[in-house]
């Protein structure tokens, strides 16, 4: 074994031992329903949240359907069967539970919010503090945050400014109370309650999430953002997000996640629904950095998420951008249903996996409308003992005249104990369709490293440059706030991992 190789090995080992940066637990009282799942638990969740009858019925229907389903087995991931009766389906911080009961008693300012909670967000670097922004301590930012702590939305900032524009941005529970008509009209229209195993489970037990409504002709004046965190032990997190952009509206939504270190696997089964009417644009960006498990593959989040956008109107556009760095298992396919004529769907993804992480992720582009176009750019980087699969569907229906798809999937392998896989499904039923798919799998070539080193660049910097260049097409699609975070995340994730 050459000397270089030894150093490389050493560096990889150092990387493997890096600890999860965000592994800490906030010690506050929680209001938890005992583990187990049955109709009573669902009724209890619904009652705790004071939900209208139609929502309870919807939940129960989803639950009864879920009972008839079996977990999907086609994904390239392996894990022991999940005991759904051992999970707790509702956890809310005490203070927030009270909030949910009495809307009026919400903290008027951040001073009233449990300081420990604020501290947690501080550690995560969420720009929650409006004062901090005003004082110029944090970076001046045009971002509204709806922070989700475990299951209940705690506080929402920038409400006034958004209200002025007519944009509704609030927790899902709030929306259920204040805008039941909108919820009734759009909930489950993109991801039906019985869509798949995890979506059905989510529909039955979802706790909270975010709701965004951008009325006709409005361009949302700022980026909207939600930080999800999973905190309590053994609680599944079942978020439900619904974003509706009316005719000509425009909204950019950012979702970021970090979770405290936990030894036992935690389940996260979220559902995100996007609806874009005529000429509307929705841009949904995610940076996901949940606890991936330790170097032995112990612990970590199971991330089984259903995300789907319905480009319902003509000339509407939905863009998914994601940087996936965390979770022990990721099972996630943000999709676009291109229903409106001339609608556009885009998917840009960077998926990094390390240690024993398993990723099976990709997208679905369902072309139904005429002249619909979709672009898929997927970059995966696998290191350690991880498995990283792209699984994507491009479907051109008979009605989709002159539809166009371009797909590019590139995989980068770092080390020889991991796997990179590509499973593209391509279905065409219309002769005017034009579909292109290309994929490559390779490692960073010794030539490239050598060239950069000969220019006086260290091996590590050279690797960083190459990896950054590899992901550039995706980073370019991220909003400013996220692009910086994503690059930092990538650098940390792969520090010293290549020789």
């Amino acid at each position, binding site marked *: 074994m050459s000397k270089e190789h030894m150093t490389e090995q050493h560096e990889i080992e150092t990387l493997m031992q890096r600890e999860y940066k965000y592994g800490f637990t906030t010690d506050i009282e929680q209001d938890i329903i005992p583990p187990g799942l049955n109709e009573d638990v669902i009724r209890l969740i619904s009652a705790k949240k004071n939900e209208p009858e139609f929502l309870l019925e919807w939940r129960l229907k989803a639950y009864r359907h879920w009972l008839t389903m079996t977990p999907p087995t086609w994904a390239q991931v392996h894990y022991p069967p999940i005991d759904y009766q051992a999970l707790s389906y509702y956890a809310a911080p005490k203070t927030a539970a009270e909030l949910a009961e009495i809307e009026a008693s919400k903290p008027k300012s951040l001073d009233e919010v449990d300081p420990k909670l604020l501290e947690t967000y501080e550690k995560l670097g969420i720009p929650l503090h409006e004062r901090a922004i005003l004082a110029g301590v944090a970076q001046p930012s045009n971002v509204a945050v709806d922070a989700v702590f475990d299951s209940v939305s705690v506080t929402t900032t920038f409400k006034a400014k958004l209200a002025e524009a007519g944009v509704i941005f609030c927790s899902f529970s709030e929306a259920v109370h204040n805008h039941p008509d909108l919820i009734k009209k759009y909930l489950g229209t993109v991801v039906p309650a019985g869509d798949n195993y995890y979506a059905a489970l989510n529909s039955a037990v979802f706790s909270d999430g975010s709701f965004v409504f951008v009325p006709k002709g409005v361009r949302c004046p700022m980026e909207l953002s939600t930080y999800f965190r999973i905190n309590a032990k053994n609680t599944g997190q079942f978020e439900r997000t619904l974003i509706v952009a009316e005719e000509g509206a425009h909204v950019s939504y950012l979702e970021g996640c970090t979770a405290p270190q936990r030894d036992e696997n935690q389940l996260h089964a979220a559902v995100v629904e996007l609806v874009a009417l005529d000429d509307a644009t929705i841009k949904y960006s995610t940076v996901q950095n949940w606890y991936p498990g330790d170097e032995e593959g112990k612990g970590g989040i199971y991330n089984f998420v259903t995300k789907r956008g319905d480009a319902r109107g003509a000339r509407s556009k939905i863009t998914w951008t994601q940087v996936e760095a965390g979770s022990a298992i990721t099972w996630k396919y943000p999709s676009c249903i291109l229903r409106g004529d001339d609608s556009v769907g885009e998917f840009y993804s960077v998926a990094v996996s390390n240690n024993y992480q398993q990723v099976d992720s990709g997208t679905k582009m369902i072309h139904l409308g005429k002249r619909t176009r979709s672009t898929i750019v997927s970059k995966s980087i696998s290191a350690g003992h991880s498995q990283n699969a792209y699984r994507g569907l491009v479907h051109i229906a*008979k009605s989709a005249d002159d539809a166009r798809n371009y797909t590019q999937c590139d995989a980068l392998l770092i080390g020889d*104990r991991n796997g990179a*896989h*590509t499973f593209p499904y391509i279905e065409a039923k219309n002769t005017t369709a034009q579909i292109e798919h290309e*994929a490559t799998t390779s*490692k960073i070539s010794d030539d490239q490293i050598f060239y950069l080193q000969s220019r006086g660049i260290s091996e590590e910097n050279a690797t960083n440059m190459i990896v950054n260049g590899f992901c550039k097409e995706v980073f370019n699609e991220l909003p400013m706030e996220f692009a910086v975070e994503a690059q930092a995340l990538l650098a940390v994730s792969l520090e010293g991992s290549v020789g």
Partner: protein
Amino acid sequence: MNRTPLPEWLANSLIDTLSSQQPAAPGEIHTTARAQVIEWGLPTLRDEEWRWTNLRALTRPLPTSDVTAPPETIGVTDSMPQVLRIRFNGGKLVELPKELPDGMTITPLQDADHAQRRAAFAPLAQSPNDALLALNTATAAEGLVIDIAANVAITPPIVLEFLDAPSETAAQTRILVRCGPHSRATLIETATSTDGVTSWRNSVLVAELAVSSQLNHLSLGLDGDARLLTDRSFVTLARDARYRSINIQLGGQLVRREIDVNITDTGAHCDLFGLMMPRAKQVLDTHTRLTHGAAHTTSDERYQIIADEAGRGIFKGRILVAQDAQKIEAYQSSRNLLLSDSAEIDTKPELEIYADDVKCSHGATIGRLDDEALYYLKSRGISSENARKLLITGFAQEIVDQLPTPELVEWVGQIIARRLERQQAE
């Protein structure tokens, strides 16, 4: 599991078969397979490997027909006298070559020894959840073992001609081809059937390529609109072996071929070429699985589908590079022409890679004929129909040209040309 129980008619025919003939599979393999057949039934669209191919046609008894005569033979055997011809009629071995070249032996499965039969039926263990393989293993009584000795080159092609005669149940055949070290051979599988007469063949071919041996394996399904074929090949390559598969499917109501190639040692190379041209309501489907199990091995895979009328073409190709199988070069392309709005093409080129020092890529395209190319030809005074035909032929020719002899290239080329003309006339 997402399966339908074994249809009643199939279960009955299985019982009939087992009571009337001695199964060829060795005892314990046969017992396992029989249990699997009953447990697994038939795969459905919810089974990931069958999501595009519906086996509905097998859920009820096959339609019977008054035609009992074997179909007229066509093609290879007539136009090429220099072949070693083996014929099966409805799954029964009916003809063997009168003379065999030195170094080649053919043993009917009934006369094969235990070791040969064990080798012929070995793939059961490697292929979990394969209901049709289990069915073949449980019921195949007829078949062959073809042995080619070391250092021998068999010049005339070995032709396996299946006369897909109407029968009440599946013709289950099992072929084992063993190529000795440094040997060379060409094997052609062809099928012949009568239009409008339903037949079903569920066949398995196992090929073992020893060190430095070469096998050209052609599968030509050139006719038939009612023929059902479920067929799989299992191929193993030893060091420096070369295997070339050319799979051309132009007919059949439902054709599902699965080709499993396992490269087990360094220096070996595999070519997988395929052309499928579904029309009418045909469903032509090929699944390939290519495993690079050793370092310094290469492969080239090219599949093309031309789907017209209400035809359906399906391709799924998986390339798996095992851990520590470094310095692999694997190239895979799936290029497809969709000529009618009632037609459908589904393709899924897959890469599954567990080693890092590899060069693997795949590409897939689906489109129609190039408008500009059509316009160019028409501007040169070529009629629309002829221009279309020229472009289709040109596209198909890329695979046809890979056939090993000029005679075969011409012969298959003509069949495609005739078919296009007939379609045009219709």
